[in-house]
């Protein structure tokens, strides 16, 4: 499974209640890839952190999109915010904590930001 090209795509309302669906989807993919329980837990925590970060940006997110695939022995994941164009009513998150936590959990993290804040977060890890 680990080397078989596979991709999942998920579009969710930008609402913290829906983050659970992203977590379940990614942990399912991790399970298919044969990850151990500890790594799946890390994946769930990282997913939560990414979504939380994307929701707490200056510009309001309308939807969150998740793209993940297993390719060449790695799981690649990207979570991005589809912005609404209006200001967010949620308080901004602490980007430093997000980055620190993600970099502790995942070996390869990248945060894409612009003037409206963090728009997408990607990470990959060997499976």
């Amino acid at each position, binding site marked *: 499974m680990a080397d078989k090209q596979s991709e999942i795509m998920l579009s969710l309302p930008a609402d913290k209640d829906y983050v659970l669906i992203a977590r*379940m989807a990614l942990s399912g993919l991790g399970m298919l890839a044969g990850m151990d329980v500890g790594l799946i837990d890390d994946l769930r*925590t990282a997913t939560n952190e990414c979504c939380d970060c994307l929701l707490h940006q200056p510009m309001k997110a309308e939807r969150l999109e998740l793209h993940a695939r297993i390719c060449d022995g790695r799981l690649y994941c990207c979570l991005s915010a589809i912005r609404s164009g209006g200001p967010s009513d949620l308080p901004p998150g602490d980007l430093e904590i997000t980055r*620190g936590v993600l970099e502790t959990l995942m070996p390869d993290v990248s945060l894409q930001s612009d003037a409206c804040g963090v728009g997408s977060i990607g990470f990959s890890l060997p499976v």
Partner: protein
Amino acid sequence: MNDERLVPIMERYAATRSPALRDELVENYLPLARAVARRFEGRGVEREDLQQVASIALMKAVERFDPSRGFRFVTYAIPTIAGDVRNYLRDKASGMRVPRDARQKLFKMQQIREQFEREKFREPSAHELADAMQITPDELLGLLDMRNQTDIASLDAPVGEEGDADLSAMLGVDDGGYERVEQTQWMSWILSKVDDKERQLLVLRYRDRLGQRETAKRLGVSQMQVSRMERRVLARLRAIEESGA
């Protein structure tokens, strides 16, 4: 995190190693440790334990941090705290196929689910079950997932290979029970004790003699739902019959 005002204190602490300064730094950075610990909640360990591990990791970070290297303290501390919390979680989890805490929750889940069904004559939703167990829906889904991987008997298992239940066996009557069921009076008694959906189910299953798969198709539900509903109804009818109500 704005920690500029703490930079001089950190520098003084690095130079003097004064316990009072260390305590001041730890106290000021405790919200940071707690914020990091919060990220790891819901993984089967109590919040207080996580916060304690994070606090100890914070103290370690304060003691090891060298301001002369030009990094900000939080840049150094966050991975240290997160790493220690994660390692703690991993150590806690290793050696336990199913953590004892999870086993207890699985047992509790089964009890609450059965009690809910007895009281409300239907299955609880995931949210209702999570509320009753005072856990998050996420934790509940994790438990359901775990339950599938353990040998704890599933409540959802169909009665027979094809999910074909035997009313006589379920109601505790002899093999000739079908004839009895077909008797109008008996059927009327049964149908008076069930709601519309259950009535449809019983008619399809025991009057029309359809299999669960076909019954499910007719009712527009899954075979598993038919199986569960049927077991529930039969158990209730048996209880009513036994009580003589």
